[in-house]
C-alpha cells in the first residue's frame, strides 16, 4: 500500500494520462460526451486517437472528432477474480468485468462493463456508455447492459 493509499487520498482508479492525440477526447468526457476520431478521407473511425489515419495514412487534416452514439456490442469479456493481483481497487475488492466493446462507429475499446453481475457479461451483448467521475473532473467511459441512454 502506497502512502497515498494509506492516507485514503489515492484515487480508486488508475487515472489515465492525457496524450497529445487524446486531449479532445478527454475534455469532452467532462460533459459526458463520447468522441470518436474520424477519418474524412476513408470514412472510418480511428481508435486510439492518432495524428494520422492508420487505415489510409491520411494526415491530421483529414481527422475530425464525432460524437458517438454510446451504443456498443461486447466483443469479448473476462472477469478479474483477484482484483488485488491486478492492482485494482475500484471494485471494492470484488470481481469485476473487463471487456473489449465494439462501438457502433466501428472502433473497439477496452472498458469495464458495470451494472450487472460480472459473470453475466457475454460476447454479443448490447451495452451503452456509462460514466465514472475521475478526480480531475474528467469522466471515464464505462459500459452497462442495454440500449437505453444512461
Amino acid at each position: 500500500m502506497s502512502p497515498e493509499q494509506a492516507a485514503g487520498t489515492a484515487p480508486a482508479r488508475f487515472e489515465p494520462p492525457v496524450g497529445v492525440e487524446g486531449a479532445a477526447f478527454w475534455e469532452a468526457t467532462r460533459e459526458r460526451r463520447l468522441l470518436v476520431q474520424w477519418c474524412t478521407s476513408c470514412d472510418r473511425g480511428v481508435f486510439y486517437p492518432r495524428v494520422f489515419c492508420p487505415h489510409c495514412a491520411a494526415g491530421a487534416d483529414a481527422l475530425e472528432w464525432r460524437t458517438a452514439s454510446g451504443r456498443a456490442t461486447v466483443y469479448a469479456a473476462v472477469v478479474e477474480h483477484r482484483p488485488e493481483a491486478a492492482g485494482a481497487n475500484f471494485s471494492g475488492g470484488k470481481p469485476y468485468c473487463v471487456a473489449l466493446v465494439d462501438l457502433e462507429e466501428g472502433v473497439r475499446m477496452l472498458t469495464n462493463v458495470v451494472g450487472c453481475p460480472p459473470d453475466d457479461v457475454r460476447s454479443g451483448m448490447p451495452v451503452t456508455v456509462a460514466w465514472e467521475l475521475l478526480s480531475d473532473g474528467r469522466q471515464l467511459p464505462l459500459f452497462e447492459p442495454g440500449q437505453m441512454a444512461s
Partner: protein
Amino acid sequence: MTGMDRSLRGAAAIVGVADDVSPTGELDRFGRELEVAMVLDALADAGLSLSDVDGVCHPESAVAFAEYLGVHPTFVESTMTGGSSYEVHVEHAAAAIAAGVCDVVVSVYAATPRSDRTQGRRREWRRPTGPNPMAEWDMPYGLRTPMGPYALAAARHMHEFGTTSEQLAQIAVSTRQWAALNPRARYRDLIDIDDVLASPLQVSPLHLLDCCLVTDGAGAFVMTSAERARTLAKPPVFVLGAATCTDHMVIGQMPDLTTTPGAVSGPRAFEMAGMEPGDVDVLMGYDSFTITALLHLEDLGFCKKGEGGPFVADGHLGPGGSLPMNTNGGGLSFTHPGMYGMFLITEAARQLRGEGGARQVAGANVAVAHGSGMFLSVMSTAVLGTEATL
C-alpha cells in the same frame, strides 16, 4: 505468398545450447554472472570459445553485453519482442550469417524473478517517459497483465468456436506429462483436467493451472554457418525456415482475438523450409497460457481454425502422441522466467540431437520453435532440422 526466397534454408545452424533452471524455481546466480555462464556453457557445448564470437544478441543491449563479454562483434542484435525475442534472434542471426555479416553468433537470456523477490533484490524497470497508449486507454480498466489479454482471447475463442475450459485444461495436463519425464522441471506431479478446473480462477476463463510459472531461468545458444557447424562438437541443428510477424501491441488493437500473427509467420517459415506441419516431429509452441498454445496449433496449421479444442482433447500432444508438444514441460510446468522463448530453442536442439533422455522423441528430425511475445503481439517461427532434412 509465392516464390519465396529460400536462400536461408540450411545456411546456418544452432551448434551450442545451454540452460539453467531448478526444480526449486530459484537459481543462486543472477544478472551478468548468469548470462556469462550461459554463453560460456553454450560455446563449450559447441566446442567454440569467446574469441570466435563476432555476433551478439541481447534483447536489452547487445552493445553493453558485448562490452561486458569483451568481444568486438560485427553483428549486434537487440530486438526486443518479449518472449519471442530469441526466435527473432535465430531468424536475424541466420540471415546475417548467410550474408557474411558475421560467423559465430551468441544469444543469451537470464531472469530471476522468483529469487529477486525472495532475496529482496530490486529490479530496474524501464518506465515509459510519458503518456502511452496502454496507460491512457487500457490501464484504467484493471486488465491484469500478462494474463488478461490472453483471457480475452480465450473468451472470444469459446464464444466463436465452442471451445471449453476442459479442452484448454487438456493442454496443461499433456504438458505436465512431459514435465514428469524431465528431472529439471519445476512441477512433475501428474494432474488431470479436474485439477486444472479446481485451481483458482485468475482472470476468467483462465485458472491458475492454465497459466505459466514464475521461475528463475537462463539459457543461451550459439549459431554459425552450416559449413563451420559440421566441424564442431555436436550435430548441427540447421535453420530451415524462419519468419516473424506482429499485428498489434495492446490487445484492443489485435485485429481478431482468435487469430495471431503466427498465421503469417508460421506459413512463411514452413514455405522457406519447404515443409508442412505434418513434417514436424516436435513442436515447441510458447505456452504462456493454455490458450496461447491452442492458438499456435491452429495458426501454424496443425488443425483448422476453431478446431484446436477437439484437437487437443484427442490427446495428440503428450508422450506417445502424434504431435509431441513442449517436451521439456513447457512454460506451464518446466520454467518461465518471463521471456521463455530461449527454452523453446534449447529443447528443440536437444531433441534434434537425440539428447532428450526419458522424454526423447524417437527419430526426431524436424522441430519447430514458435515464440509468442507481448500480448499475442509478435510471433516468430523457426523450423529446425537435422542434417537428414537438408
